[in-house]
């Protein structure tokens, strides 16, 4: 199976990864060969098989509705690219 240039650009846009024109062909061909590998799965009859999302049949635990965390804001923001007054800075999104 082979992807088109347009499909590759669309995937990159969904994944929020900029794709330069110069990388397009190499990316397209490598993704297409990966698809070739995973296409093999189509040959297996899975009628009536329950999808396995996880290795163990876990039920999510519930905990008491109580505050368990303390304030680590300063420590966590110390590794951010840009912060101001305890807020993460990003480009303006609302004009």
């Amino acid at each position: 199976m082979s992807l088109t240039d347009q499909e590759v650009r669309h995937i990159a846009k969904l994944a929020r990864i900029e794709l330069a024109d110069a990388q397009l062909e190499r990316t397209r061909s490598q993704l297409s060969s990966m698809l070739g590998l995973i296409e093999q799965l189509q040959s297996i009859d899975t009628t009536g098989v329950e999808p396995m999302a996880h290795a163990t049949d876990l039920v999510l635990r519930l905990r008491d509705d109580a505050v368990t965390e303390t304030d680590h804001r300063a420590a966590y923001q110390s590794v951010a690219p840009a912060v101001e007054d305890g807020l993460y800075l990003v480009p303006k999104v609302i004009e």
Partner: protein
Amino acid sequence: MNETVKSLSARLAAGSVSAVELAQDYLARIRAANPVLNAFVELNEERTLADARAADALRAEGRAGVLTGVPIAHKDIFCQTGWHARCGSKMLESFAAPYDATLIARSRDAGLVTLGRTNMDEFAMGSSNESSHYGPVRNPWAHDAVPGGSSGGSAAAVAAGLAPAASGTDTGGSIRQPAAFCGITGIKPTYGIVSRWGMIAYASSLDQGGPMAHTAEDCALLLNAFAGFDEGDSTSLQRPAEDYTRSLAAPLAGLKIGVPKEFFGEGMSDDVRAAVNAALATFRTLGASTVEVSLPRAGYAVPAYYVIAPAEASSNLSRFDGVRYGYRAPEYGDLADMYAKSRAQGFGEEVKRRILIGTYVLSHGYYDAYYLQAQKVRRLIADDYAAAFAQCDLIIGPTTPTVAYGLGEKTDDPLSMYLGDIYTTSVNLAGLPGMSIPCGFGAGGLPVGLQIVGNYFSEARMLGAAHQFQQATDWHLRRPKE
């Protein structure tokens, strides 16, 4: 330095060496060998010696445990305060975690001394350690060969005697395959045994941490420290604590070993086949019996893995957006452009490839055909293992189809590298425990790994069988020339 965790523990207990002296010895070895091997990406002598002094102080107070003062190297995927956690990526070049992963906290509580942080494939995506932003690791047995991946730095460090033990993580074989390529022992426990809290996520339904060392006995001692329930990981299993050393002395008489015929077919090289068959003969000599079993859908594990793991990765790695941590592009326009440029510049090629394919298989119109189908095949693979374990106690075969290949040999052909994980990925998909132990040497004098797969929660039995094998053989005692 041919030391095991066990022997170092005994020397520390006898007072013939201190934790500080041990740490200094290993640091000197690392300084000498690392410029060539590149197994470590971060050293911090002051921190290491502070850990060692604390361990010696505990011992002086009579509060030392079996691992107190034993040095360990940690894979650069575990968050650890006071150290960087770069995960092999430019994206996290400046990142130093503000908290400890549970595996790190448990190591520290056991008194283990951190020697440094080991190199790895970027975000654990790779089988040769060549996708690391911090350069490839060289295999201590042959410097032009890969050490395997993604825990390649950990495996090389142990093999070269730069650390007696290391932590690793295994999503599709990343503990077992480098252990095989470097001639050491490593175990990926049952999914849910070792907490994933603070372990930078690749594919959450498959990721599992575990120990790497020279011997099965050392791995058992380390697993005792690493394993245990953790509130911080929603998939951590609530089970009574186990002593993973409890079956080391158990004789192998009566043990039924299943040999999966599909693992001995086309693609397995002759040198690996010979070493694995000889190991099976050794197990029979020790009183075990072997029976042929079948895993008919195991051949689909690699394609199923390359749907499920990238799908989960595309979701997990969406957190790297240049806002809360990690790399931000120096120039950008609006917010979406900042995301796209930061991610394009911060991630390497292999990581981008997996995010893109993962995005595709989850996208509208393809979800059922790829992602859901892969999850159904995953169920069939798990069912195959369940049927096989009705006939045997352990499944034993090769860890990899070949010994370590050359640096650069497969970098232009990702697919051929993926297919090298043919015997390991099915174990992660099923969530079973798997380990690799050295069982001989093949082409170029490079080590061959033997894979032991157990049923859920049978780590003690696997480690016991591996230990008995290591009592009868000396492959795990061989060391590369310095």
